[in-house]
């Protein structure tokens, strides 16, 4: 326990240190890309829990993001300033009280998204494959249309004036993005190697056999949706506070597809693969920004390339970059003498 606490403290220290150092070392543009990578890692890994590890097929991830983003922005926008100043005695010291408000808001956003994940997960008890896909897509769109019609958060005009991450805190956004991404990866890896994770893998491999072996498939599938949605919601919250603006148009199913492409590229079922793919898929469009000047109608070539990549990937290497394996199963200096089955990495 003490070791874990120390590890946690070390991580937070690391995040704070990087948060202070990086803006001085990198130009703002690079720093921004880094933040996007962090958010995308969280999104891709959390979707991978549902699509890759549990073998369900969700394309409504943007909906969970939207819920988390709007709920947390609502809290900080309307209650944030009041909460940050009205610290009860015995509470956190005023200097970092804002951090707790922000964290609380993000947590609330994540929990709201998890609740939605529970609702969306329920049909997965009866549906599989493409039907489930279309239902999650439908849910994502329903969420978006509902937000579009809530005037308190701006409706179709968008939610402007979301407090920036710095407003509540001495640290910049990178601190939170880094922590969330690392936390998502750690929780996912630990989850996969726990008995719950083994149940998820069993459901993916053969649902009937899993049920026959005593796995509670209902609980497992809904659980995957809830955990995935929770992290997606927190990532959405961070994105909102980072951009200081939200609009329902940011959370269409094109966004869900983008996240899906990351998961597929990295390999469905590979957590480190998702991390890798999220980084690639964030950097690639930035690197290709110049191509825009040469395309007809000056269209951003990003989506055309992504979709081509997806088609070619499916035709030639449907397992993605890493398949079911993790990075530590692939790199030569850590390769095991007795190669265990898929997804056994992470315990080392």
């Amino acid at each position, binding site marked *: 326990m003490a070791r874990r606490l120390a590890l946690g403290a070390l991580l937070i220290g690391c995040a704070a240190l990087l948060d202070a150092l990086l803006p001085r070392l990198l130009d703002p543009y690079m720093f921004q890309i880094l933040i996007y990578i962090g958010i995308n890692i969280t999104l891709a890994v959390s979707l991978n829990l549902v699509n890759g590890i549990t073998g369900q097929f969700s394309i409504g991830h943007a909906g969970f993001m939207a819920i988390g983003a709007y709920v947390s922005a609502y809290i900080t926008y309307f209650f944030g300033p009041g909460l940050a100043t009205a610290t009860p005695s015995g509470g956190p010291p005023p200097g970092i009280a804002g951090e707790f408000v922000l964290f609380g808001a993000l947590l609330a956003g994540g929990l709201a998204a998890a609740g939605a994940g529970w609702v969306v997960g329920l049909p997965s008890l009866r549906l599989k494959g493409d039907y489930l*896909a279309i239902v999650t897509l439908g849910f994502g769109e329903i969420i978006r249309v509902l937000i579009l019609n809530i005037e308190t958060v701006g409706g179709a005009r968008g939610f402007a004036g979301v407090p920036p991450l710095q407003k509540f805190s001495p640290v910049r956004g990178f601190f939170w993005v880094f922590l969330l991404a690392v936390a998502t990866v750690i929780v996912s890896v630990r989850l996969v190697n726990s008995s719950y994770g083994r149940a998820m893998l069993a459901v993916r491999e053969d649902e009937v056999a899993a049920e026959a072996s005593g796995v509670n498939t209902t609980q497992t599938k809904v659980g995957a949706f809830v955990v995935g949605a929770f992290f997606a919601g927190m990532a959405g919250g961070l994105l909102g506070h980072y951009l200081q603006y939200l609009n329902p148009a940011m959370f269409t199913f094109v966004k869900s597809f983008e996240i899906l492409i990351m998961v597929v590229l990295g390999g469905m079922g590979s957590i480190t693969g998702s991390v890798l793919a999220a980084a690639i898929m964030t950097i690639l469009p930035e690197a290709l920004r110049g191509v825009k000047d040469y395309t007809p109608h000056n269209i951003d*070539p990003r*989506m055309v390339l992504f979709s081509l990549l*997806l088609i070619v990937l*499916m035709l030639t290497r449907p397992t993605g970059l890493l398949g079911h394996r993790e990075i530590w199963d692939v790199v030569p200096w850590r390769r095991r003498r007795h190669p265990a089955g898929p997804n056994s990495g992470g315990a080392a």
Partner: protein
Amino acid sequence: MNTFLQHLLNGIATGSIYALLALGYTMVYGVLKLINFAHSEIFMVGAFTGYYAAHALGLASNPSLLGAATVMLISMTVCGLLGFLNERIAYRPLRTAPRITSLITAMGVSLFLQYGGQMVFGPDPKFFPQVFPKSNLQLGGVVTTNYQLFVVAVAIALMAGLQWIVYRTRFGKAMRAVSHNFEMASLMGIPTDRIISMTFVLGSVLAAAAGNLYGLVYPRIDPLMGVFPGLKAFVAAVLGGIGNVPGAMLGGMLIGLVEEYAVAIDPWAWGALHVHVGRFKDAIVFAILVAILVFRPSGLLGRYEPEKV
């Protein structure tokens, strides 16, 4: 009463376009068990081919009914070819792959056509020309246009033709056999590959027709126009019972009517509760989808098939 009939007619006009689209989804799902996400983009390409063909034939300045038919035939041919290529290049190599793989590929093709379409056609909306003279008509107390009647008439004619193909021809019989049991059909000497290709062509031809009709009624066309009609047509196919041809027609009509009446009863008040139902019409359609899938996955006309292990 007149307003009721008015909305009924509008709903049927939109619904018949959804029905034409839904047929493509349902036929492909029948033979391949694949949600062909790219179908809505074939619909979009159909509308754009119609747009360019109409301008090439000079119909924008010199409209005629014969010209309208020519435009439609041209875009049906182009889309039939596109549907064929789509199946040949993207789906056939994955015939034996897990279904999720083909599903992801279908999404990829769909996105590719959407954004490729933006590059080819330009991202700004274009206006579908009036390919034959438009006039207002009075039917009893109901105001309509000859366009609306044209849409309904063409849709009904095409659906009757499809019904004939599916239930009265050798190809139709083979298609139903493949849809019933793929392996058994191939053992009986049915050329399954050719049948599947033909099914895609048939679906794409109907989608092209739907695209042109849609362009007539809602002249604003852009490369992303297919997304929502496509999703709704898919909901229609599921509502009617996927894989079921009459079901798709019924489902399309129902979805068109639901949408129309959602807008018609806007603002809906119940006690102190005021809801702008019309703004939620997309959400309502998806809610229908979720409800159908959860409570009656076989759809209205589909039959229940217990899953075998």
